[in-house]
């Protein structure tokens, strides 16, 4: 069963609200929200997000590697949707590799 992107988005949104302490984030976080312009994320916040993703998904989702593929500007302008898609793809790949079935949420 493919990973549920809506469930992942809900989890990521919770993490982002917590990191931003609900300040400066106007309205709902969607797949189209961008890190800097919509969420006011600074680079140090991206590091905080990496820690939360590691705690939640372990090594299945290699966020550090994902981020290393972007430059700092690209990390700031990242769409939440792109991160959700990366996580879903990583989880699907891990499932296919291990033969396990299930979605993360």
């Amino acid at each position, binding site marked *: 069963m493919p990973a549920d992107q809506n469930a992942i988005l809900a989890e990521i949104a919770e993490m982002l609200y917590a990191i931003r302490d609900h300040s400066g984030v106007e309205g709902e976080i969607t797949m189209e929200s961008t890190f800097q*312009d919509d969420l006011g994320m600074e*680079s*140090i916040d*991206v590091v905080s997000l990496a*820690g939360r993703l590691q705690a939640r998904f372990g090594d299945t989702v290699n966020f550090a590697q994902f981020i*290393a593929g972007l430059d700092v500007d690209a990390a700031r302008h990242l769409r939440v949707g792109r991160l959700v898609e990366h996580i879903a793809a990583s989880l699907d790949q891990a499932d296919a590799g291990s033969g396990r079935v299930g979605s993360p949420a």
Partner: protein
Amino acid sequence: MSTVLANGLSVHVERLAPPEPASGAPSTAPTAVLIHGLALDTLASWYLTLAQPLAAAGLDVVMYDLRGHGHTERPAEGYALDDFVDDLAALLAALDITGPVVLLGNSFGGTIAFAYAARHPERVAAIVAVEAVPPIAVWRERMPRWLSNAVAYLPDDTLAGIDGRGGLGRRARSIREVITGTSLMRDVPASRISPDEHIAAIGCPVLCVYGGAATVGDLAPDVRRLLPQARIVIVPGQRHTVLVDEPDSVRDIVLPWLLQSGGLHRGHHQLACIDQ
């Protein structure tokens, strides 16, 4: 987020481990400590650029926010270079890192690396300094100008800290707090410098990377005079922010150098100081 108590401060630390050895043998990966610069900078500048490539190359990567910066505690006083060196020594002890380490420093972080090596030469296997010089007389002469340049570099609204979106304004507030709320601007230029002979006694391999359009590289001849073993690379056209502006270029300079000259041997996970 992980915090460690070091030198009386709560210090924000991030680590990226190298891939597990296939044999299941205990890891003997050498440690790389990545040190960021002043005021505008946090460990994110390393985390989002070279940290992952260094871990993938087999290094146990440690990053931390300097006192007053990022998520590390911000005391009102104590921002001379020696305070930052004491913090680094205490952090390594707190993390139980006892062997020689590779120090990578950006801007003032590079100066911390040199100052640490001058005080603890046996603890440093190699130094990579990006847009940085050792704490010599000419460094202290230039520091006030560099600091005021850094403040001038901030966007106009920074010191006012007005930003309805919370983005730039939040970062601006943080920078303003460290500049106006601490003794940093006073302490850093008043730092004790290292006698030339202590810098010259740093025997480990040294790599210095400078942006061709920045002024720090003007001091490269002073670096070469004291550290003749240093490899000096200029990245044409780049500014003081070369690490975050051109991370791929910096990576392509740093990684091959670490493998060839910096004592990191692929597959062996052993460090040796080639000059000792």
